[in-house]
């Protein structure tokens, strides 16, 4: 049976992890490769690297990082952040990334999704969507959630699928950082509406939240950052817990 995926997300700035991590057994907690290797060993099913640097050398730094990760890591990983062209994606895939995640650039230029799917295949195109509820309507936001658009989450997700996206990574800004659980109602609706996998993001605080998002939220995968980085939830224990709840999981 296809298993549900647990995905730690690493925020990267100038080639280093940021937001802090608290792994006592790491030599250098800021080194994304060392952290990624740790997660791969402890049972993460996939990794996401989100580049938040704003320097001009970002493209080269990110490409170098991808190469170093690919050299060391034997599980799949996705790279996102500031990717806006076929050339950007080409370099990252050539360097060993399995998938790329695009967000604002997909909203600004939806054709990019078609171009990427045609050139590299849908399987490596993840479209990330940040949304929050405004007057009861799930509204897509850009620039890390700062700028609202007039796009409706569900309509945009359907368009993204029809243009060839292979997966949707949905972050609920209403839930992100709250540690009060994922946006399971919206996730379930997305999952029923779409025929591609949906990754839940934003709100993880307890193991129960993961159980909930895989059952009532119908999510195919769940992404989290700080609860993993700060050992609030250990991945091996989380996976045992999910297994005991009869959720298909890889141990």
């Amino acid at each position: 049976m296809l298993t549900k995926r647990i995905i730690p997300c690493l925020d990267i700035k100038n080639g280093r992890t940021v937001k802090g991590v608290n792994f006592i057994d790491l030599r250098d907690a800021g080194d994304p490769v060392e952290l990624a290797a740790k997660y791969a060993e402890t049972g993460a099913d996939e990794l996401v690297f989100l580049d938040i640097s704003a320097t001009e050398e970002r493209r080269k730094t990110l490409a170098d990082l991808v190469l170093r990760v690919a050299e060391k890591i034997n599980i799949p990983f996705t790279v996102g952040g500031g990717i806006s062209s076929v050339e950007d994606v080409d370099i990252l895939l050539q360097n060993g990334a399995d998938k790329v995640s695009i967000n604002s650039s997909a909203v600004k230029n939806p054709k990019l999704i078609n171009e990427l799917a045609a050139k590299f295949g849908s399987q490596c195109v993840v479209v990330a969507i940040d949304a929050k509820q405004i007057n009861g309507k799930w509204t897509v936001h850009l620039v890390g959630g700062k700028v609202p658009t007039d796009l409706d989450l569900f309509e945009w997700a359907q368009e993204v699928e029809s243009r060839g996206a292979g997966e949707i990574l949905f972050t609920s800004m209403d839930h992100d950082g709250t540690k009060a659980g994922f946006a399971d109602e919206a996730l379930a609706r997305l999952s029923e509406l779409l025929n591609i996998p949906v990754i839940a993001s934003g709100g993880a605080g307890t193991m129960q939240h993961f159980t909930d998002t895989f059952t009532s939220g119908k999510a195919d995968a769940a992404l989290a950052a700080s609860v993993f980085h700060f050992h609030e939830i250990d991945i091996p224990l989380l996976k045992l817990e999910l297994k005991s709840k009869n959720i298909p999981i890889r141990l």
Partner: protein
Amino acid sequence: MKLVIINYGAGNIQSIKFAFKRLGVDAVLSDDAEEIKAADKVIFPGVGEASSAMAKLRDTGLDKLIPTLTQPVLGICLGMQLMCKHSTEGDTTGLGIFDVSVTKFSNSVKVPQIGWNEVSNLNSPLFEGIPENSHMYLVHSFYAPKCEELIAETMYDVKYASALQKDNFYGVQFHPEKSGLVGEQVLKNFLQM
């Protein structure tokens, strides 16, 4: 050990190179018939769409070469699918090494299948030391149905062939280079053939 990865412009080759490098083998990328024929082991990778990948193989004559190889050959993902006789993806005629036609998952499941799924009914030296129901990483929309040449099966939509073998030709639908330690074991076994 001379390990050649067939180079025909297909997808993510870097990960396969690195996976072998972690096992201490430097793989060479090549589209040269003589170099491929002279290799001890050959990897036939593939990511992307079947008909355009097949067109690239025909352009370079590799479509004629591959079925004549006599050393162990391992097709991965689309590589395995192209070793079959046909694929409904782009109505593509394949290399015909495996006597099975590749078809698409139905709409009753999410397509592509993305993630870790179990391999069972393991029946090949390729899976030496790998426990039944181990999880492998898969990303695909098309699959080879169960057939005589099946050496591993996986359940998604239907029970299908997640690995095939005929003589010196091996094909795996999953990505051993991305399947953690069990995937590494598959590559190690292949190197030991």
